[in-house]
């Protein structure tokens, strides 16, 4: 076909397409699908001339010759965008069906909706709190049993000899538990790996990550996090809590579970991306609030991560969900702790309260805090760089599930070994405190009545270690212990993050930071003659923890509030803020935040706050996909099926055009005469949401292919359009602020152009297909795709999220990412 020649030589096409490209694709509605099907077979032909980063350019051109004719394959790297991610439809598709339904709703109807939103938010908070409570109690119990067993064993063998057996026992116990967690993650739900914060961040950014908010994910996540914390890995349970909250929100707001095949027939109005995303942000907030006992921090977390589509009412609702979540957690924990009704329990992680003199800080300490922030930034950047290389290695080489499970087990075993060795060789003995702050004191070679102080740091759940670093008396740890602990834990945590287990990075970061922070505090007290003025090292532990966490995750606003709330102490607001700012500035100089790195490595088309700084040179014409596959308003079923099953039309948006020539009239007439027996409702789409069957699952017979479909009802008659000379930052703003999924690019001439979204094709088909297949077909078409109707308009291109996310500012200026199938 003619198209192929066009694709083979880019240089010649550049001139032609100006004329041909603008005219043909649009008006050749029926031709178009076939045209665009070609790339799947001959797609590689068009690779010449692709722009890529400077580094990749050489690699590609050298490969080009040898690989011509086959799809090119390159090792995974951070400069790719995956095809599997779709945008969420945050912007409602205002087609006829939608408008009809909205117009039917009375004022009271909207009031009721508002009330049910509040109910849903309350439920989200409640369930999230319950889950947090469950995780907390189970982890505490199981970890208690494990440490008790190991402790008894160690005590026994300290006496009679054979401590290496205890070491083995500890390592085997750890790996066995972690193996369980890794198996459920690696084999059943890989998306549940990690902290889940990157995924939720993407979701709130408007990207549909497959399977991220399913019930199965939640179950695996909860089970996985229990296993990994109990298994003694250097992880925390807070990040997964945020993910769990999000899943709960997505599930509750839909009033049904597709996994369990139960439909409660409630909240049907919320079965759409717009509403679901609002609730997911509430769920994430509730998760943060349960994890840290920080309701305001939770709200700000959602705000910071998904801020583009916020309004006051939503914020208020989210705050409600957060509060309910904290309340629920407190309530149930109070019952668990046999003090029913006492609601002052903090969240999952309990940093304890700073009281009395220890909260005082002075003006002359501010520069010290800032210096600590800088250290935190440096260490955080180091952490991120190491983890980045490790993750790349993992994606490239450790991608088979059984390998991932093995790796997790090895990490668990090594963690136990390192901890044991540290404890074994530590000479730091401290007297047992009167109120038994140490949960599992290990004596080993210490004098009776004393315990090994290295063991309080290692032989404990990470969360408790943080607490003891914050609050133990000055003199509880000696500097050598802390130094060694920081060093080993830094590498362990860095190694652990990114394994195929559900686990968060918050607590390990806090722990590393608290350890070196406390070290700083102790050293400060020793180098100054009047040591007492530096108050207690717990304060520096807190500052260090904030600095380290800020240096790794680079959150600012929400993190400050979370730290302030989790310690219940507003006094440290300013120091923490300064520290986080410094850590972020210093860290950003070297490398991005950990979550951003992982988002990039997942090849997710993530849109940042603003377009890349130097992108004003780019216009919509350069970023858009073109030519666009267009459909007619009355279209052959066969054409539609072909278009949809074509893998190269991955954006799922199709302009619908009306032909002006006379022959079209005939088609319309024809269509009308076979009008639908049953009219399609918006409800039909809702019922299928969010898992629309792929078009491949629908069998369309040859006869049916010849039928005609009327797209009028389904198309969005008023799409957003931009002229092709619009600059990239402007397009970017539209996407970011409106949550668009597609943006139609029209040509410069002021002819009328209308883009229409696809919904309308369906009604005609009902006549011809059996009802079932019909419904599937429709939902597939409508919900996974957009059709726009363009009358008399020249659609020249289509901009999707991936087109925008491809540009980013790299070391060598503006760089372009590549699309890849993952």
């Amino acid at each position, binding site marked *: 076909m003619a198209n192929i020649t066009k694709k083979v030589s*880019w240089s010649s096409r550049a001139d032609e397409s100006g004329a041909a490209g603008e005219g043909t694709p649009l008006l050749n509605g029926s031709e178009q699908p076939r045209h665009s099907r070609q790339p799947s077979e001959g797609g590689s032909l068009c690779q010449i001339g692709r722009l890529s980063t400077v580094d990749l350019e050489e690699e590609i051109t050298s490969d080009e010759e040898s690989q011509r004719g086959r799809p090119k394959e390159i090792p995974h790297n951070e400069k790719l965008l995956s095809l599997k991610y779709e945008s969420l439809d945050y912007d409602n598709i205002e087609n006829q069906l939608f408008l009809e339904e909205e117009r039917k709703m009375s004022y009271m109807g909207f009031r009721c909706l508002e009330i049910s939103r509040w109910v849903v938010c309350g439920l989200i908070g409640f369930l999230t709190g319950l889950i947090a409570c469950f995780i907390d109690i189970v982890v505490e119990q199981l970890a208690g049993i494990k440490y008790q067993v190991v402790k008894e064993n160690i005590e026994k063998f300290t006496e009679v000899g054979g401590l*290496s057996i205890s070491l083995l026992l500890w390592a085997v116990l750890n790996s066995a538990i972690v193996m369980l967690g890794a198996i459920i993650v690696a084999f059943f739900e890989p998306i549940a790996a990690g902290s889940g914060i990157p995924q939720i961040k993407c979701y709130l950014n408007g990207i549909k990550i497959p399977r991220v908010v399913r019930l199965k994910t939640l179950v695996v996540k909860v089970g996985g996090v229990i296993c990994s914390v109990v298994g003694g890995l250097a992880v925390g349970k807070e990040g997964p809590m945020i993910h769990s909250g999000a899943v709960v929100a997505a599930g509750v707001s839909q009033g049904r579970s597709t996994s369990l095949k139960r439909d409660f027939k409630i909240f049907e109005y919320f079965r759409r991306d717009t509403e679901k995303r609002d609730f997911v942000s509430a769920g994430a907030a509730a998760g943060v609030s349960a994890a840290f006992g920080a309701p305001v921090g939770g709200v700000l977390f959602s705000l910071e991560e998904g801020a583009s589509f916020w309004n006051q009412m939503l914020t208020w609702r989210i705050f409600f969900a957060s509060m309910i979540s904290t309340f629920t957690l407190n309530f149930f924990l109070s019952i668990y702790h046999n003090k029913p009704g006492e609601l002052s329990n903090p969240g999952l992680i309990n940093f304890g309260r700073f009281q009395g003199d220890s909260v005082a800080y002075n003006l002359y300490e501010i520069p010290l805090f800032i210096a600590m922030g800088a250290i935190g930034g440096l260490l955080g950047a180091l952490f991120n760089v190491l983890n980045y290389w490790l993750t790349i290695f993992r994606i490239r*080489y450790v991608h088979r599930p059984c390998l991932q499970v093995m790796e997790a087990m090895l990490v668990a075993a090594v963690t136990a070994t390192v901890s044991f060795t540290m404890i074994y060789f530590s000479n730091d003995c401290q007297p047992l405190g009167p109120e038994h702050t140490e949960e599992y004191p290990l004596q080993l*070679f210490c004098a009776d009545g004393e315990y090994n102080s290295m063991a309080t740091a290692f032989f404990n759940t990470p969360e408790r270690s943080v607490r003891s670093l914050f609050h133990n008396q000055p003199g509880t740890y000696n500097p050598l212990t802390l130094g060694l602990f920081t060093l080993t834990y830094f590498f362990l945590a860095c190694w652990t993050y990114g394994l195929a287990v559900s686990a968060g990075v918050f607590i390990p970061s806090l722990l590393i930071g608290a350890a070196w922070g406390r070290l700083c505090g102790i050293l400060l007290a020793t180098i100054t003659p009047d040591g007492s003025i530096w108050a207690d090292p717990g304060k520096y532990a807190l500052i260090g923890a904030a600095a380290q966490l800020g240096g790794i995750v680079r959150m600012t606003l929400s993190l400050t509030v979370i730290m302030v709330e989790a310690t219940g102490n507003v006094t440290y607001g300013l120091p923490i803020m300064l520290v986080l700012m410094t850590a972020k500035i210093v860290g950003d100089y070297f490398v991005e935040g950990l979550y951003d790195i992982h988002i990039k490595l997942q*090849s997710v088309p993530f849109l940042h706050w603003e377009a890349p700084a130097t992108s004003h040179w780019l216009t919509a014409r350069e970023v858009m996909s073109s030519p666009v596959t267009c459909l007619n308003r009355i279209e052959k079923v066969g054409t539609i099926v072909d278009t949809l099953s074509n893998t*190269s039309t991955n954006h799922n948006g199709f302009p619908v055009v009306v032909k002006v020539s006379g022959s079209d009239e005939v088609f319309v007439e024809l269509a009308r005469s076979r009008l639908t027996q049953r009219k399609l409702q918006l409800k039909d789409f809702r019922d299928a949401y969010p898992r629309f069957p792929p078009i491949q699952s629908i069998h369309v017979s040859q006869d049916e292919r010849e039928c005609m479909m009327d797209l009028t009802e389904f198309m969005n008659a008023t799409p957003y359009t931009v002229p092709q000379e619009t600059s990239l930052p402007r397009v970017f703003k539209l996407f970011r602020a409106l949550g668009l999924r597609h943006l139609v690019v029209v040509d410069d001439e002021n002819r009328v152009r209308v883009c229409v979204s696809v919904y309308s094709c369906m009604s005609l088909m009902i006549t011809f297909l059996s009802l079932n297949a019909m419904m599937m077909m429709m939902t597939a078409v409508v919900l996974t795709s957009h059709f726009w109707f363009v009358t008399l308009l020249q659609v020249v291109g289509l901009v999707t999220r991936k087109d925008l996310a491809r540009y980013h500012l790299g070391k060598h200026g503006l760089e372009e990412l590549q*699309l890849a199938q993952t």
Partner: protein
Amino acid sequence: MSLHKNCSFLVLIAINIYALVSSDAVNFGASDTADRLRQTPSLSPAVVNSPVVFKPVSDSSLSLLASLPEDLEINDYCSDLLLIFGQRYVAYVNCLVRAARPVMVCQNCSAGYSSLLDMYTNISSDQVGPGNVSCRDSLLRSDRLMLVFQLYNNLKNLWDSSGCKNCIAAGLQSPTNDTLYFMATLHQTTSCFDKYQHGNHTELCKNCKNTYKDLNELYSRMEKNQTLCIDIEDAMNMTRKEWSKKFNCSFPREETVPVIAVSSFMLFLPIIFYLSSFLHSEQKKRKLIHPKRAKSYTSLMNIQDKQS
């Protein structure tokens, strides 16, 4: 008695306690001091005076006190109670100080506390004594200082934190059986220590190990039952210190080699794992897809050219 006298009496008690604690239980006669205080009335304003706000009032206190109406004075019954309370207080504190090191406060002084408690209960009860006056109001809450209450409270805190309740039988007169048994076991251990301490310490470690271990086990059992009090804790602490620090009987670190061997084996595993997966695992490749584009791309080079 006038309120003034009352005041000075309280001050006297305070000073008395102070003296007891600071000067190795030198005991002033109560009346002695009271006399001296009366002679030096400047002392009592000094005490009352401390917040500046009250200064004018206290300056004129003498004249005010003289004119106090009869019913504001405390009656004899109450002052008697107060006196007895003071004596018992002194006795108890005396006992405490003597039992401070090694700590024997529970075994020796519980009876004292019990009588003090009785007295205080008497004072603070609702009962109206002779003269139709409730001593609770006049003694405990008629002034800002609430000295009697504070004094009692201090000792009560001391009592609570010592945990003596756990090892003294219900009437606060004698130790519980558990305590006695512990003390017996303790005695066994210490006598064993005494027996061997002049010879080789390894000898001691070997021979006293069993009794020491029994003691330790008993202690941890009691710890679980929460029948510990400061006496027992302190005694145990001392014994442990002797055992570990003086006689050096803690476990030696002697298995360094196996531990190092096992851990280096463990640390070696990941290296093998990563190497083998690097060498044998198939590297994951990504298929590149070429997006449709309007024209030949405005290359980024051009952009950068334009910029520069």
